[in-house]
C-alpha cells in the first residue's frame, strides 16, 4: 500500500549512530526499573518497518519537548483536579491518571487530528493529549455550561467530535467496540467508498481489569477478522479498584504472570509488552502499531506496564496497595525520566524545561479560573441533546410539537 506515512504531528524520528549511546544513558537514568521488554510476538509487522535494532528510535528536540509538555500538563492537570475536588469545586466520581502519562503522551501525540481515541472513566489526560483544551475539560469537571460537553458529561464522559475523542465511558470495556467501530468507518471509507486516503486509526485505552470483560475479546476478534486500523492499548497498572491483577486474571499457560499481550496472537494480531513508565519506549511501539494500521495490516495489542500514583478514584482510601510497591513505581516516574534523558542528550536545556513547567502551570491555572468564572448550565439544558431532532419528543395534546411548547425552554415541560 505504499510507504508508511508518518501521519504524526511530530517530525519523523530519524535513526542516528548515537542511538546506542543514548540508550545506554537512558538505562543509567533509571536504575530501579524492572527488566524492560519490548517484544513483537508476531514477526510480520517488522518486515516493512525500519529495523530498530537498538530498541529506541531517536527523537527530535521538538518532539521530545512536545511529549514532555504533554506529560507535565497531564500531571499538573490531574493534581489540580485533586485539589479542586477536596475544595468542593468538583464532585461525583473523579479518576486520576497521575503516573500513567507516558502511555497517553507516548501514543496520542503521534496521532493525527482525524484519528480517534476511546477511553474509560480515566479519560482526562487522553483528552488533553488529543488536543481538547484544558479549559474545556476543567469547566466540564466543574459541571459548567462552557465545558466540552456543556456540563452534561462530567469527569467520566469527556467527548469531543472536533478532536476525535469518542469518550469517556463509565463501563469499562464499553469503549473498546466503540473505538473498533470508528476504525470500521475508516476501513469502510477506503474499501466501500473508495477513498484511498482514508487511513485514520483509532486507539482504545483501557486497564487490566477490562481484559476480563467479554467485549474486549469480541472486539479483538472482529478487529483482526476485518483487519481494522485499530490499536488496543492496555494500561496495566496492576489494580482494578482493589483487585490485584493476578487475583482477577488467570495466568497465561506456562507463565508466572497473567500476561495480557499474549492474548493478541490468539486472536490474530501481534501482542507487544512495553514499559509504560518510559514514554520513548511507548512511543516507539506505538509508531510501529500506527504504521501497521495505516498500511491496512490490521490491529495491534499493546500492553503497557504502568502505575497510577493515586487511588482508583478520589473516593478510594487506597488501603490495599503496599507502600513498597508505590515507592517502587514512584521511582520510575515517567516525567523525571524523560527530563533527565532530554538534558543528558541535549534535547532540551534546563531553561527550556523550566519554561515548559511555567507554561503548564499557567495553562492549568487559567483553566481553573475559566471554569470558576463560567456559568452553570441553564435549566433549559435538561431537555436538550436528548434527541438529535427535538421533534423526537413527539406531539403534544394540542397538536404542536412538544419542543415548541413554552415549558420546553425552561426544561420543565411534560415530555412523554
Amino acid at each position, binding site marked *: 500500500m505504499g510507504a508508511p506515512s508518518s501521519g504524526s504531528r511530530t517530525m519523523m524520528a530519524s535513526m542516528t549512530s548515537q542511538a546506542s549511546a543514548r540508550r545506554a544513558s537512558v538505562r543509567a537514568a533509571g536504575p530501579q526499573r524492572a527488566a524492560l521488554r519490548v517484544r513483537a510476538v508476531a514477526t510480520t509487522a517488522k518486515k516493512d518497518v525500519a529495523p530498530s535494532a537498538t530498541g529506541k528510535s531517536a527523537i527530535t528536540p521538538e518532539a521530545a519537548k512536545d511529549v514532555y509538555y504533554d506529560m507535565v500538563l497531564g500531571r499538573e492537570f490531574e493534581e489540580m483536579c485533586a485539589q479542586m475536588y477536596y475544595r468542593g469545586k468538583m*464532585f*461525583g*466520581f473523579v479518576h486520576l491518571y497521575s503516573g500513567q502519562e507516558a502511555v497517553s503522551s507516548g501514543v496520542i501525540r503521534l496521532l493525527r487530528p482525524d484519528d480517534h481515541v476511546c477511553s474509560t472513566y480515566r479519560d482526562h489526560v487522553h483528552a488533553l493529549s488529543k488536543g481538547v483544551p484544558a479549559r474545556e475539560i476543567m469547566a466540564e469537571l466543574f*459541571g459548567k455550561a462552557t465545558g466540552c460537553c456543556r456540563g*452534561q*458529561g*462530567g*469527569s*467520566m*464522559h469527556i467527548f469531543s467530535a472536533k478532536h476525535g475523542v469518542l469518550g469517556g*465511558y*463509565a*463501563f*469499562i*470495556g464499553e469503549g473498546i467496540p466503540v473505538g473498533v467501530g470508528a476504525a470500521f468507518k475508516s476501513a469502510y471509507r477506503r474499501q466501500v467508498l473508495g477513498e484511498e486516503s482514508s487511513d485514520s486509526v483509532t486507539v482504545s485505552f483501557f486497564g487490566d*481489569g*477490562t481484559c*476480563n*470483560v*467479554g467485549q474486549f475479546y469480541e472486539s479483538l476478534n472482529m478487529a483482526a477478522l476485518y483487519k481494522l486500523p485499530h490499536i488496543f492499548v492496555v494500561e496495566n497498572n496492576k489494580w*482494578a*479498584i*482493589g*483487585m490485584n491483577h493476578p*487475583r*482477577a*486474571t488467570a495466568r497465561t499457560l506456562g507463565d508466572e504472570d497473567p500476561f495480557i499481550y499474549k492474548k493478541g496472537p490468539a486472536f490474530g494480531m501481534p501482542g507487544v509488552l512495553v514499559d509504560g513508565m518510559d514514554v520513548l519506549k511507548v512511543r516507539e511501539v506505538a509508531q510501529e502499531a500506527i504504521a501497521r494500521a495505516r498500511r491496512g495490516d490490521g490491529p495491534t495489542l499493546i500492553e503497557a506496564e504502568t502505575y497510577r500514583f493515586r487511588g482508583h478514584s478520589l473516593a478510594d482510601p487506597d488501603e*490495599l496497595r503496599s507502600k513498597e510497591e508505590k515507592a517502587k513505581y514512584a521511582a520510575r516516574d515517567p516525567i523525571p525520566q524523560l527530563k533527565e534523558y532530554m538534558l543528558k542528550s541535549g534535547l532540551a536545556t534546563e531553561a527550556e524545561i523550566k519554561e515548559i513547567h511555567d507554561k503548564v502551570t499557567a495553562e492549568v491555572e487559567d483553566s481553573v479560573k475559566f471554569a470558576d468564572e463560567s456559568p452553570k448550565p441553564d435549566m433549559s439544558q*435538561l431537555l436538550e441533546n436528548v434527541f438529535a431532532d427535538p421533534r423526537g419528543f413527539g406531539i403534544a395534546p394540542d397538536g404542536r410539537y412538544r419542543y415548541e411548547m413554552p415549558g420546553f425552554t425552561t426544561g420543565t415541560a*411534560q*415530555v*412523554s
Partner: protein
Amino acid sequence: MLQAIASRALPGLLGGALGRAGLQQAARAYAVTAGHAGEMTVRDALNSALDEELARDPSVYILGEEVGEYQGAYKITRGLLQKYGSDRVRDTPITEAGFTGIAVGSAFAGLRPVCEFMTFNFSLQAIDQIINSAAKTLYMSAGAINCPIVFRGPNGAAAGVGAQHSQCFAAWFSSVPGLKVVSPYDAEDARGLLKAAIRDNDPVMFLENEILYGQSFPISEQVLDKDFVLPIGKAKVMRPGKSITITAHSKMVGFSLQAADKLAAEGIDCEVINLRSLKPLDRDTIAASVRKTHYLATAHPLTPPPKTPTPDSTPQNPNP
C-alpha cells in the same frame, strides 16, 4: 417528581366504614412500631442481614466486584470475608455477564447466591443472564428448575455521578415476569426485605440506594431478631393521613415524609405509603388508602414521569 392524580373513589365500596377500617388495620399490621432498640444505618442493616443469613444457611454465598478484600465498594459487605472466608465471599473479576451467569447457574443447581452489582447500571452488562436465564427458566422448565438468587446493589441517582451511574431500574425489572423487585427505604426495610429475599425461592432484584446507606433510622427489638423477615408484596403505611395518599419507594419515601411535614402546616394531612415491594405490588394497601383519602400522588425518581402505567403509578381508578 410529584404527580397528583385526582380520583374520586366510591365510598363504602367494601361494605362500609368498618370494612375500610379493617383493611387499613391489615395494611398497618406490617408497620413495626413496638419498642425501640436504638438506631441503625441502612448499611449496618444490610451488613447484619447478610451476616446472619450466611451463618444460617451454608448454601448462601456472596459474589461481586470488591465485595471481599475491599470490604465492599460501598462497605456493605464489610467484615464478611474475614468472618466467612473467600469461598463464601468471592471477589470476582470485572465480568458481569460472566459472574452473573455463574451465579444463576449455581442457583439452578441448588445454591443461594447473593450477587452484588456495584451499581444496578452495571446489571446491563449481565441483562441477558438476569432476564433470559434467571427470570424465565422456571417457566421454560415447567417448574422444574428455580432460581433462588438475590441481585442487590445501589439503584437510582447518587450525587453527581453522571448519566451512566444514575439510572433507576425499578420499572425495567418490574416489567419482567419472573422477577421479584423490592426496594427498601429504612433500616427495618433493609434487614427484613434482604432476609426475605435471600430466603425466597425466586430471583429477587434488591434495589438499594447509595444515599441511604449512611442514614440512620430508629429500629425496634423485633427488627434485630435473626429471623426478622418482612413479607415481599406488602407495603407499609409510614404516616397515616386523611387528605391525600402519597406512594413512594426507596429514597423518595424520605422526601415524601418531608413533604408531608411541610403540608401538615398547611392543614393537608398526607398518608405516606412506603411500597417496599414493587413486584408484586401491594395494590390492596394502596386501594384502601385511596378509598379513604380520594387523592393519590406518586413520588418516583424518574424525570419526567412516564405516561404508560408502571407498577409505581397506580391506575386512576384504584377499584379493580
